[in-house]
């Protein structure tokens, strides 16, 4: 099976393993309390839950396409997006190369 189909990434085991910490951080944003902590200090929160400086930088730059290249799950990017006020159409447009 191809791992890129029609310009979209297939969420393979390799991608899941590579992006594991970033995806895991995103799953923690499923409560109002954790979202508030993340919003108050994104980098500090991400560091505390085990993210790397590279992962922190990807989120700081809101570089959704780079996060997808890194292996993130689109469903988890939606949780980061919700916490920072960015919607699916905005993330989708960014990853399509058709604007931010």
């Amino acid at each position, binding site marked *: 099976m191809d791992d890129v189909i029609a310009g979209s990434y297939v969420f393979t*085991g390799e991608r*899941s393993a590579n992006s*594991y910490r970033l*995806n895991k951080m995103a799953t923690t944003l499923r409560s109002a309390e954790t979202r508030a902590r993340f919003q108050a200090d994104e980098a500090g929160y991400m560091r505390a839950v085990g993210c790397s400086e590279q992962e922190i930088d990807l989120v700081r730059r809101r570089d959704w396409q780079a996060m997808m290249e890194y292996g993130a799950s689109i469903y988890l990017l939606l949780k980061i997006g*919700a916490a920072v006020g960015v919607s*699916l159409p905005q993330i*989708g447009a960014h990853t399509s190369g058709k604007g931010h």
Partner: protein
Amino acid sequence: MATVIGGIGTSHAPTIGVAWDKGQQGEPLWAPLFDGYIPARQWLEDIRPDLFLIVYNDHVNQFFFDAYPTFALGVGAVHAQADEGWGKRPLPDLPGDPDFAWHLARSLVADEFDPTICQEMALDHGVLSFLPLLTDTNWKVPVVPLAVNVIQHPIPTARRLFRLGAALRHAIETYPKDRRIVVFGTGGLTHQLHGESYGRHNEAWDNEFMDRLETDPAGLTELSIQQYMERGGTEGVEMIMWLAMRGALGGTVKRVHRNYTAPLTTGYGLLVLES
């Protein structure tokens, strides 16, 4: 004895829930979608189901990739709502049916399907986006949810989901209590949530899929996961779960209702079938 009285195939999406909660059912963008559910809701009122068996997928809300089950069965008496990252909707928790669900677990494992058994299973829009369109939200009909991994590859084949449907039917027909059960398959239809084809939906394929689900489901099981993703998007591959519903209905079916619309990024299909 329990019986399969019908099947529903339906798309799911968080935006349906948002639009519903905002009362946008009558707006031009949304009316073709929401109005499409009205005949299905009437059908459900007429046939008086006792139980919904819903084959759906979790969007990393109940499960995470630390341990992601290929199949997972909710056997609890109550199913909570997951916070997907934007807060919970104003909906009560859903009632389950532990007695039937444990029977289903025993029957599926005997038939060589091995779900992870979940006494707690929080549900996301994979169940809760379309359900308020089909039934009152005081949730009179209990729900047994069966989650399928369609997001982290490798995922099960279309053929395996069709066979899962046959195993669901066998389980239902060997349940000793009188229950009138509607089986749901939910997900899709075509959508692509990222990448250069973001927003693409394939109306021709969506309609071909719904046609063949009625008349040629075995043919649909011949397609590979790659072929489903080429036609319907890497996320649209969810549509294979409709084959579990179809497999539960057996040989020939009668179409009760069908609707298709695509207001935003997803091809939204709805199909109501009787055995």
